[in-house]
């Protein structure tokens, strides 16, 4: 099978790559691009561990092909941190919303999409926005608290 050339923006920088037509975006980003924040959990769209941002929207990289990234603006947790947007990950850590940490990159990515759209989310908005991310450790209360704290920090409110 002939590899397909793609070029896309990964964490703010244009990159080019040759990808097999059947390769998932998940495997490509993790194995070929070294973006190990993108985790493989269920591989069927349930757990959200593989969540990335494509053109401003959060999607599952396990249900997407690498070739579909062509021409897109793609963000993973690595890029969010590198670009200095650390207020979400810091809020998660400070509030104690991280236990084993496997789910955390996916949660932070979904939180970023939420807060970019709605800097002042209500509890229901937070629950709805994180519906596609599963955490088996924390029981979610701390995660919701972390999102509220991140929102306060983003708005610049003193906490």
């Amino acid at each position, binding site marked *: 099978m002939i590899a397909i050339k793609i070029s896309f923006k990964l964490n703010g920088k244009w990159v080019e790559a040759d990808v097999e037509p059947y390769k998932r975006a998940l495997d490509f980003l993790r194995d070929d691009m070294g973006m190990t924040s993108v985790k493989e959990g269920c591989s069927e769209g349930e757990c959200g561990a593989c969540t990335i941002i494509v053109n401003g*929207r959060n*999607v599952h990289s396990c249900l997407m*092909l690498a070739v579909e990234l062509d021409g897109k603006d793609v963000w993973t947790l690595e890029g969010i941190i590198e670009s200095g947007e650390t207020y979400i990950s810091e809020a998660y850590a400070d509030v104690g919303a991280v236990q084993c940490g496997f789910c955390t990159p996916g949660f932070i990515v979904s939180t970023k999409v939420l807060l970019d759209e709605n800097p002042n989310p209500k509890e229901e908005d937070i629950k709805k926005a994180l519906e596609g991310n599963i955490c088996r450790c924390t029981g979610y209360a701390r995660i919701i608290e972390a999102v509220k704290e991140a929102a306060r920090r983003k708005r610049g409110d003193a906490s």
Partner: protein
Amino acid sequence: MKFNYAAPVTLEELSELKKGGGKLFSGGTDLFVKMRAGVLKPDLVVDTKKVETPKLECDKGLRIYMNTTYTDILKSGCARKYSLLMKILLEVGSPQIRNRGTPVGNLGNASPAGDFLLSTYVYDSKVIVGPSMREVPVKNFVKGPGKVDLSDEEFIYAVILEPLEGYTTYYEKVGRRNSMVISIASIAVALKIESGVIEDARIAYGSVGPTVVRFTDLEEKLIGERPKKELFESLAMEYSDRVKPITDVRASAEYRKKLTGNLLIKAYLNMNL
């Protein structure tokens, strides 16, 4: 699992590739799950997203074109008056699924648990089938679980929902819909009441038969009547008797039958008629 990928830019090419055995996809939220599970093993997947099509048109009914995602609709102002549809779409999957998944894919998948599919039965929808652009009522288009009225070269181009003006509506889904597992049962109801009397009634159920079901003879029993609790209670029993659900890991057929009736009574009580 290895397969090839094509991304046509015209509808003619798309039709040719499908005719040659390619499996179409837009969001891939059904197709890739099935391929992963080994249920489908296509040699070629055909990405429909490079074909330029309109997204939504709201002037003559609501037209939803291929590649339009749930999120596109939820964010668009013009679809907002389709309030039952909006309620239903907000319950589909998760943000990640709504950002990729499409109503046209839901139709193509033709699962009896399909939530968008359920809404199309209530909105008396029509499917526009390419490349000829023939129009088919959705109830004739869906032939069974996963079966639709498309020949090898045909594809779904768009779906048209007729507006429901002056209707009171209700929607409920019991049991979360997971990727491969269908919900236990779902109901969508639209009633039009004029001076205290029911003028039109549409009642659709998901997951209680091989396709979404509506029984027009039972709906007609409501027409001309006042919306009284007893009326809905006796109709609920008829629905329970009529549906032919299956037993699966999530619920028994008996339970689904009982639920079918109870959902109608619950819909009645919640609509505050």
